[in-house]
């Protein structure tokens, strides 16, 4: 089968959305449906789309955005983080972060910090750029190429200028396997 993007995408209606101005906690609650079964590892689509007042998608929140928002931003942490730009090794930096975590008990409370939970989504969402979008009629090969070179786990699918769905890397990869099997088998 010659897949195109609209065959593989998940409709936007399947995704949680929140408005600009919402908090980290709002995003968290929107992301986690009540029936999530962590034990069985059944996860929903782990993305929340952020809409502006015109209901237009202006950003998205993935797991990585949420985890990054939880990162402490003290001067000590910033000083350690910048070391990677100056040629220090990853192992050394990881060790410094671990030592800091052990020394700084305030980090323990980061999951309950009201400062973090009340952060506005605009402060940590991924703002959308041109290369976050893909047209619904794009071929599987081109979609796979774009996700690979743009290092995307998901892309927003458009019809004209309207966002109609999400293309996930896992679905693209599954389709690629299918395509390979059907040609070799």
């Amino acid at each position: 089968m010659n897949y195109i993007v609209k065959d593989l995408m998940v409709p936007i209606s399947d995704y949680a959305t929140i408005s600009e101005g919402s908090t980290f906690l709002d995003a968290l609650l929107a992301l986690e449906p009540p029936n999530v079964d962590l034990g069985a590892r059944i996860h929903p689509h782990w993305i929340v789309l952020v809409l502006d007042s015109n209901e237009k998608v202006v950003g998205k929140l993935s797991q990585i955005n949420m985890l990054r928002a939880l990162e402490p931003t003290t001067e000590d942490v910033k000083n350690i983080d910048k070391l990677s730009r100056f040629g220090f090794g990853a192992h050394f930096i990881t060790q410094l972060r671990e030592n800091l975590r052990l020394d700084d008990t305030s980090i323990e409370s980061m999951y309950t910090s009201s400062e973090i939970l009340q952060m506005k989504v605009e402060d940590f969402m991924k703002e959308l750029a041109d290369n976050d979008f893909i047209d619904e009629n794009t071929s599987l090969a081109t979609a796979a190429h774009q996700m690979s070179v743009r290092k995307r786990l998901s892309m927003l699918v458009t019809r004209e200028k309207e966002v109609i769905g999400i293309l996930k890397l896992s679905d693209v990869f599954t389709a690629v396997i299918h395509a390979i099997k059907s040609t070799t088998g």
Partner: protein
Amino acid sequence: MKSIQKLYDRIVQRANINLRELEFDVNPYVQNFIPFEQMIKFYAFFGISPHHRLNFQFKQSNLAGSYFLGQCKITNSLLYKSDIRGDELKKEGDLFQYQGFEIPVSRDEEIDITDSLLIKTLVHNFSHDPETLEEFFIKDTISMNYANIHGAPSDGCFLGAFATVDLTTMRDSVIGNFAYVQAGEISHLDIAPGTVWVRVPGEFNFMYTHPQDELKHYIYFTAGIAPQGQLIDFVEDRKEAFQRVFDVVNIEHSIPVPNSASLDRYAVSKPPIHIGENVLVSQRAFLQNAWLGKGANAQENCYIINSRLEGCNVTAHGAKIIEADMGTNVFVGFNSFLKGGPDSRLNIGKDCIVMPHTIIDIKEPLEIPEGHLVWGMIKSEKDLKRHSIAIEDFTKIDGGFSMGNMFFEGDGASFIGGFKERIHHILEANGAFFNGGDKKGHAQKNQYISFNTLQPYPEGPKKGLYPTIVIKP
């Protein structure tokens, strides 16, 4: 003035193009702080001696108050009260050691400054870039007050006030105020103010960053605000003493100087002063009630006040030592600010290494034991404990180490060995080991320099520009 303004616009534009990726606009940093009126007032001067090559080329530039020695070419540039010292450049036939290679130098090296604006900047040493051994280039670069470009070719960079780049080729980078970089090669980096970074890839990596809030008391300079803070005040307070030195054509120091030592005629010396054998005092150094033992030196923009240096002390470019007693072989790195008081003397034991850009500012007496490595910002005994370590202990580091805001990764012995080797080289180059016959260095060679002056067009469309001048033997 129009010519100078046009030149300024051209330089700023070229620097901005190079720094566009960092989204750094140099204009607000410099536009109101360039002393255009002063640039017409001051003469430039150059040294000639039997010990230094003579090859100057000045073209379409302003050179106000700047000093030149050795082999330099200046084109389309504005140099204000800067020192361009080409007395350590490589010679034709020298062999440059690099990563196990011996690369022959094909012609005498020259300092080549093009499309650049240097304010009260020191340029010294030689290119350590194996790709440009014969050319120590500085192009499309702007450097601010009391920056040091030391053995560091530069293309498209901005150096803040009191910044130092040492033995490093830099491209398209911003070096923040009071930052020190010695890293071999850097590109497209924005170095925060007060960063002290020393790296030899594969061997070691040292980094310290001054606390920004505290650093602002010493040096603060940002877009739209002129350089200010204790360091600027300190230098400005002593500016007048230099005025006289530069105004008088022939000046005789009243201080006895041994035959093996050199006290530059453009240095300020306020008695009582003791100059020992093999001492080097460079131009724009400031001595007041200072005792310099055998082989000690005070390089450009150094201040040594109410202090005693026992001997073989390196006081690197821009370092300031006030109310302090230093044992033998103490190294004080670039732009360090070591300030004791009459009732709170600073005592630094022999063989200590004070890292470049260290600040010690104390209200109580402080003693640093011999053989210690010292860095950072120290205002008390407690700070000293967090910003120093016995050199012997440091040499045992193999892997990662951190202390407060200082991070080190690699071989501690290699780091210390590199420093000691360099200190030895500096002392040797400065003539500290002169024995009456051999081992001459700057202290002995600089005694035979005579100075000549150059002046710009006083009026007309080229007002402020110096005529094209070529000076050869």
